[in-house]
């Protein structure tokens, strides 16, 4: 239900913001530069540039949906929230002989994440005390109930009443509305149901926002981010978890490139090496690195060595193939030209083949880094002492959703940073790529 509402709101935001932005940010919708003179743009992909207003609104929309559907303190329009605070309902008990009596149940609803909050003195929050009530007149006595948001609780009204169910007494109305066992009465603050045996339960109104367990508010995740950096989780700070994961990726990639590139060159340059490695490469290449995790753990354990070996294997085949296609991509006229300029075989390799294969090797390196980053997180999910994957899988066992989200965001940001960094490095090292 809530998911459908999110989808409808998201689609609405996509079109709604388009029509609003078109009026407000007119200049962002104008064609720029030479595109202004093009009369045909629909179908001409080169004439399409990303509308930056759309990008900004897109990010804001996701953030706003996040705020709107959680119990966030950020002052943005939000979905109706769950009931929090004190409320009450009355019930009427009827005895076998037809006499009735009314009593009040005072309910105190507290935050479901109270133990994860901190009060002024720095102590973790705890369940509030129940509301104190006078027993009142009659055989039905007033009751008190303390319940968390998103939960429900049975109100054992008979406990303090002078009559009991065994004597044939039963609840006939809630807040004046008649009710049967198995029925329910809704109020603004919650739902009162009678069990099949006639005992009332109270469930505070949930609203449309999600509980912290399912989706913590943005500020909670941000706090958790700082907390993870300061206090750490599972004995390591967030920075250390990240560093371990990155270190594994870089080491695995480094050795994969160190071994893979020469093998790729050899396969491109000699028939013996091509014949020797072809079956191995063709066999190993389609095996996803994740499928190797069990074997790698058996052979190398769950320590650093196992991770680095796994990432080495993830990077190796990609780098071999990249280097090999780099060699085959050298125009034969360049090799001929170099030979007739007096180059030796070694000079052909170092001055012509290696520089000429750099674009292919870089493309391979970008792919390999991406695969390694994905693989390291998965490997840590399976078995590790430290690392981002380890952090989120442990947090999931304790239902610490905020840590999981911090972990996912850090993984995404680093993966993105790796991609951007590799592209910058590429345009700096290989400025001729795509220009010849």
């Amino acid at each position, binding site marked *: 239900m809530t998911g459908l509402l999110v989808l409808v709101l998201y689609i609405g935001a996509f079109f709604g913001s388009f029509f609003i932005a078109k009026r407000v940010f007119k200049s962002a919708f104008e064609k720029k530069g030479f595109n202004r003179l093009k009369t045909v743009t629909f179908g001409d992909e080169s004439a399409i540039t990303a509308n930056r207003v759309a990008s900004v609104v897109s990010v804001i929309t996701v953030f706003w949906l996040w705020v709107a559907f959680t119990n966030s303190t950020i002052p943005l329009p939000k979905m109706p929230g769950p009931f929090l605070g004190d409320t009450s309902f009355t019930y009427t008990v009827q005895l076998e002989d037809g006499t009735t009596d009314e009593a009040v149940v005072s309910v105190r609803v507290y935050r479901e994440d109270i133990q994860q909050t901190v009060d002024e003195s720095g102590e973790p929050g705890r369940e509030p005390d129940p509301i104190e009530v006078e027993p009142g007149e009659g055989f039905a006595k007033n009751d008190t109930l303390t319940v968390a948001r998103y939960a429900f609780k049975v109100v054992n009204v008979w406990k303090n009443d002078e009559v009991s169910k065994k004597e044939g007494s039963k609840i006939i109305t809630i807040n004046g509305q008649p009710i049967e066992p198995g029925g329910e009465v809704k109020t603004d603050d919650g739902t009162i149901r009678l069990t099949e045996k006639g005992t009332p339960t109270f469930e505070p109104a949930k609203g449309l926002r999600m509980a912290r367990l399912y989706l913590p508010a943005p500020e909670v995740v941000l706090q958790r981010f700082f907390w993870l950096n300061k206090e750490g989780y599972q004995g390591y700070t967030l920075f250390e978890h990240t560093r371990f994961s990155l270190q594994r990726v870089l080491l695995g990639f480094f050795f994969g490139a160190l071994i893979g590139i020469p093998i790729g060159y050899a396969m491109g340059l000699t028939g013996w090496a091509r014949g020797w490695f072809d079956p191995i490469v063709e066999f190993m290449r389609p095996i996803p690195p994740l499928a190797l995790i069990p074997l790698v753990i058996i052979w190398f354990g769950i320590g650093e060595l196992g991770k680095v070996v796994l990432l080495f294997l993830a990077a190796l085949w990609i780098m071999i193939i990249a280097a090999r296609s780099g060699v085959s991509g050298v125009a034969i*006229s360049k090799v*001929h030209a170099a*030979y007739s*300029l007096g180059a030796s075989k070694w000079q052909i390799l170092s001055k012509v083949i290696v*520089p000429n294969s*750099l674009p292919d090797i870089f493309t391979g390196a970008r792919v390999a880094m991406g695969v390694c980053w994905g693989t390291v997180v998965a490997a840590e999910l399976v078995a590790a002492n430290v690392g981002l994957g380890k952090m989120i899988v442990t947090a999931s066992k304790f239902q610490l959703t905020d840590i999981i989200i911090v972990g996912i965001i850090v993984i995404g940001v680093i993966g993105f940073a790796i991609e951007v960094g590799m592209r910058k490095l590429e345009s700096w090292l290989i*400025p*001729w790529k795509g*220009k010849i």
Partner: protein
Amino acid sequence: MSGLLINDISMRFDLPNGGHVQALKNVSLDIKSGELMSVLGPSGCGKTTLLNIVAGFLAPTEGTIELNGQVETGPSPERGMVFQQGALFEWMNVRDNVSFGPDMKGVSRAESKEKVEHLLEVVGLQDFKEKAIYELSGGMQQRVALARCLANDPDVILMDEPLGALDALTREKMQSLVLDLWKDTGKTIILITHSVEEALLLGERLLVMAPRPGRVHKEYRLPFADLGVGNDLREVKKHKDYAGTREEILEMIWNMEEEIMGRTEESA
């Protein structure tokens, strides 16, 4: 004995289906040192194969190549090559491309500097020596290729349609440049081309080749190259023999193409 001797060369390519193609049959040529020879012929006449054999990239099935009395079996710096698409090293700037040959021989940059600078000046690129290859136009790239070849001081320069990819105006300028370089350096030049005009202007000796099997069909000795050195090539084209020779060769090649078409139809 100085000069390039092409000694009864034959080239046969075996096909996967068991047949074969006779790309060249009994081609013999004696090219004197300092000669400018252009080679013309319909496609499939084996002119590029001939050039690759002379350069040493292919071994002929029969016959030998001799340069200054030495039998050649592979590529060597004495036979420089200029390709249609430059084949420049785009990871180096203009100067490094030109000094590639001396660098490979282990000549220090200090020693080769003067020569490289001079060659860049000759081809008119002295202001572009720090530029990257991809920043140059096609004509400029061919100038770099020429300078790179000359920097190695080869005895023979082999050109495989070096101006084929250039526009008409750039091409005319480059033709003058090739003529001037030929006269100034005294190199032996073999130039393959598709253009009859280019073959006329850039060949004191013009070879028309015929296909199936690839062979020398007719040879001309022409005055136009000498006339063109230092002169406007458009003036050369007004020479009384120019138009006539051009028509004669065009007709010859036209007939060969017709013959090829006819044979294809017969075999089809």
